[in-house]
């Protein structure tokens, strides 16, 4: 936005911002210090997991995460983002405790269920809270890439630390104790989140019915328009990253490299998350030449995965590819948030998470199937395909400047200004489409006398209507801007401006009518 370009964040603001975000950084670190991750497969085998059990657990995730993701995002928007993040930490702590205490597959499934709840609550909400804090502290989303980049670095350091210490702890103590040791870390993460001062932006737009909020959330998510390529790119980048973390080791298996490769390979992939975080906050990433270079590197890396048989080259390509898609994901996430109003932010971000998940499951199955049949090298072509799509989207989406918030389309708001039953039906023999119940004149009802009261009704109606309509009506009718001017400022067509203004006035009219005429009229 224009503010962003003009206003550099002042040093004292930046210091205040850092102080305010500190608990979130701490929480991100503690949450990712999952000591049990490196020993999970070993532990699972110990309590009787076989291939079918692992499959069933994957099924638990694939149900729990999408089912809870959007509702938890909407809960975060309506209730409290901090509250949802604290609940997420508790779910993760519960998952680690139950997991460590699990005597069998069934109880471990319960642990997996709570881990799914953690992911659902965490994803979308964390970024939303960071974004709104930035807006509140600095008045722009300019620093978003830098802050999220830093979060990724923190997460990556925690993951590498846990990968290194988890194995050692399990060796020194026991597998179960390693799980239990994670619990206080997660509780501490919850405490850190409690210390965080939550931004209130989404509150300002509250007081909408749940049904409307859900409708706006899904509509924002699924509508055609500027948001669609941004969401597609988010999904393509996440698909590649998840794919590398999930299937990257398969290449090592196929190349029959010695076991010693696996440790550095995993360390390389997890540190690529942090590397990507640093890269993604660089300004050149969103220049046309920078975006084109990243797109080229992505496709080149996937081609290496198809063609090369040199382990070092394959590992290098995987690490670079992962770092690049993480880097790309950061400015894309900012574009997503720039385009979404605060009131539905976490819900929409979580919805993108759900879409990613829903895309990843069939993609993973396909990669698994192709690897089984013709080898992992050929499965690499699937990654090439995704990288090409991702690359094209990177070149088209990243160089565009973040624009004014995308408005929700008018399907719902474009409802008729007067209820249809106030007109004669189309098949009326005499006067189809003419008034059956004409509006009552307000002049005799004392609008002049009670102007102040009526204006208060207008204000309430403005507060209750969707923000896209409100914005136009405030600029046009409260501030008295001329027609067309507002459309230019909002980046919408003059026709859209008029439709929104009309819909907004219609809502205000109904409210004033109810006020003046009593409950009889609408």
């Amino acid at each position, binding site marked *: *936005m*224009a503010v962003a370009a003009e206003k550099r964040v002042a040093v004292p603001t930046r210091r205040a911002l850092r102080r305010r975000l500190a608990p979130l950084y701490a929480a991100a670190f503690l949450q990712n210090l999952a000591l049990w991750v490196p020993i999970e497969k070993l532990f699972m085998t110990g309590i009787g997991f076989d291939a079918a059990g692992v499959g069933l657990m994957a099924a638990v995730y694939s149900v729990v995460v999408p089912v809870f993701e959007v509702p938890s995002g909407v809960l975060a928007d309506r209730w409290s983002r901090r509250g949802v993040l604290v609940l997420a930490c508790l779910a993760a702590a519960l998952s680690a405790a139950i997991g460590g205490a699990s005597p069998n597959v069934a109880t471990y499934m319960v642990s997996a269920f709570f881990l799914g709840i953690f992911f659902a609550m965490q994803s979308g909400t964390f970024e939303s809270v960071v974004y709104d804090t930035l807006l509140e502290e600095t008045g722009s989303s300019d620093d978003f890439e830098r802050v999220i980049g830093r979060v990724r670095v923190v997460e990556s350091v925690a993951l590498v630390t846990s990968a290194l210490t988890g194995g050692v702890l399990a060796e020194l103590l026991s597998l179960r104790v390693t799980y239990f040791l994670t619990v206080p870390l997660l509780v501490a993460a919850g405490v850190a989140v409690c210390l965080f001062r939550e931004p209130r932006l989404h509150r300002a737009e509250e007081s909408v019915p749940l049904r409307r909020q859900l409708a706006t959330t899904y509509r924002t998510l699924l509508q055609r328009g500027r948001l669609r390529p941004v969401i597609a790119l988010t999904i393509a980048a996440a698909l590649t990253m998840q794919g590398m973390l999930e299937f990257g080791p398969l290449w090592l298996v196929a190349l029959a490299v010695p076991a010693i490769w696996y440790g550095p390979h995993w360390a390389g992939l997890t540190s690529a998350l942090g590397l990507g975080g640093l890269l993604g906050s660089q300004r050149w990433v969103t220049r046309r030449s920078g975006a084109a270079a990243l797109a080229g590197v992505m496709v080149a890396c996937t081609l290496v995965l198809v063609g090369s048989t040199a382990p070092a080259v394959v590992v290098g390509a995987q690490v670079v590819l992962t770092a690049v898609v993480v880097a790309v994901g950061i400015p894309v996430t900012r574009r997503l948030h720039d385009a979404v109003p605060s009131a539905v932010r976490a819900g929409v971000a979580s919805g993108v998470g759900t879409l990613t998940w829903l895309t990843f499951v069939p993609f993973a199955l396909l990669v698994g199937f192709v690897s089984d049949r013709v080898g992992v090298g050929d499965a690499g072509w699937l990654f090439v395909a995704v990288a090409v799509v991702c690359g094209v989207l990177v070149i088209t989406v990243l160089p565009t400047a973040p624009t004014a918030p995308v408005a929700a389309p008018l399907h719902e708001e474009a409802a008729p200004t007067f209820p249809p039953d106030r*007109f004669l039906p189309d098949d009326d023999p005499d006067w189809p489409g003419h*008034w059956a119940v004409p509006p009552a004149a*307000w002049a005799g009802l004392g609008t002049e006398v009670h102007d102040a009261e009526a204006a208060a009704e*207008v204000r309430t109606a403005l507060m209750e209507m969707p923000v896209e309509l409100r914005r136009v009506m405030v600029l046009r*009718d*409260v501030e008295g801007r001329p027609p067309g001017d507002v459309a*230019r400022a909002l980046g919408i067509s003059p026709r859209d401006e008029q439709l929104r203004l009309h819909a907004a006035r219609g809502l205000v009219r109904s409210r004033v009518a109810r006020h003046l005429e009593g409950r009889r009229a609408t």
Partner: protein
Amino acid sequence: MNGEPGTGGTEERCVDLVEQLTAYLDGTLPVEERRRIEQHLERCEGCRTALAQWRTVVRLAGRLTTADVADVDPLLRDRLMATFLEARRR
């Protein structure tokens, strides 16, 4: 019944006319369309009332000040105004 419907096939129907009120007040309608609406308004008390209500809504909204609605949406407003000023400068 307050309306006095016309007889011609091009007669504006009330249900359609009320959706044109904002465009009519903005003065962005083609001349022909505007003329038809004015003819309809002359004959139809219901639509005249609807137009009067529309004008009242605009007048009432005009009584509000920027400060009245500032707390409705403070941040979005600030961002919006900045964009607005920027757009004007260009």
